């Protein structure tokens, strides 16, 4: 996690405060899979659900592995698409 006093950080995932350097460290250790990066770093798991950072991570993975962007597997797009309050979920579903 980043420190407030740190300067010149390059933020990749602004929801979860994950920097480009942190992601590159994992990639350099051989983690070149978006799914694993997500589980290890929580990248893409904040309020925006990866809408901002996923294209950036995928580009980085493409660069590191020499594969074209379209061949980098994405993660599963699970429901819900956006954060929902637990109270709302606990209220159940209205089927009318």
């Amino acid at each position, binding site marked *: 996690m980043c420190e407030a006093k740190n300067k010149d950080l*390059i933020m*990749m995932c602004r929801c979860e405060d994950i920097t480009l350097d942190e992601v590159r460290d994992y990639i350099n250790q051989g983690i070149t899979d978006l799914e694993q990066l997500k589980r290890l770093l929580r990248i893409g798991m904040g309020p925006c659900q990866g809408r901002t950072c996923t294209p*950036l991570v995928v580009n980085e993975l493409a660069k590191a592995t020499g594969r074209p962007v379209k061949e980098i597997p994405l993660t599963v797009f*699970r*429901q819900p698409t956006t954060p*929902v*309050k637990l109270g709302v979920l606990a*209220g159940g*579903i209205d*089927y009318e």
Partner: protein
Amino acid sequence: MKHREIAIIGGGPAGLAAALRAANLGARVLLIDRSDYLGGQLIKQTHRFFGSKEQRASERGIDIARELAAGVTANEKIQVMTEATALGYYEDGVLLVEHHNKITAVKPDRLIIATGGAEKNLMFPNNDLPGIYGAGAVQTLVNVFGVKPGKKVLMVGAGNIGVIVSYQLLQAGVEVAAIIEAAPRIGAYWVHAAKVVRAGVPIYTRHTIKRAYGEQEVSGATIVQLDENLQPVPGTEKDIDADVICLSVGLTPLTELLWQAGCQMIFVPELGGNVPLRNEFLETSVPGIYVAGDVAGIEEASAAMMEGALAGLNAAASLGYTSESLASDRKNVLAQLAGLRSGPVGEKIRKGLAQAML
């Protein structure tokens, strides 16, 4: 279960046009939008559009949004749900919608996904300093809420959005220090770019942001020239004072619901990222699911309205609704779309769409 003939997700230009066309053919429509107003990004467009009369040239986006929204609201075949978020699409064809802290299940016969796009971000040192915004946020502040984001703006990106937002900032009395663009040429239409150039704003092509600086917030940025391979040229750094950095570096389609529905997707850089494969009716690989607007490929509001009209007509027609003019209406919209995408300006979009057809 709430049964609907057609559900439309997204009340921007594409969704509104789709709702009107489908309802006019006779279909009952449910239009869902997460905002508390209809119109999407159109309501922020205070500039005049151009093109041909049929594409509503010389009208302002905000006026088009008001007119379309009024038509939708007045149409008794259209039920409007604002402040409603589509949470997910499930394999049994059920859509869950959160509306005023309640979750409702909807099972539509046809679904038109018109969710639009999301802004892309850029990585550079200190890119999380307060004062760094996406262009959409700046446009919301200035054009919707009447709030200046700061005193002096560095705009990153000289596409249509970057240049138009720069001009709107000038109109609001905010200084624009410079516009920088990584590509060798300005992406915006000249009619827009000429206005900011006349106002004295320098546009640096082949430039990018090297780093932002500032203690508690942005006080400026170092920009640098790029060579043919988009690599920084040492010694060309220049510092630009600014308390706002506005990022306008493109959009990417908002496709979560399409993935959940199992639509076949393809990565097409010309269309902004992953987009659904679709046929000439704008129907995806999943029968009954249609797309329109930026979610099908990043383009602009005029094209989104045309695609929305087409998806609305086709979805309603597939349910058996018809009219004497259906065939000619369809042909007319297709001809207008082809016109919008013609010439050198439409080259990129034509190249992109060619890869995304079923």
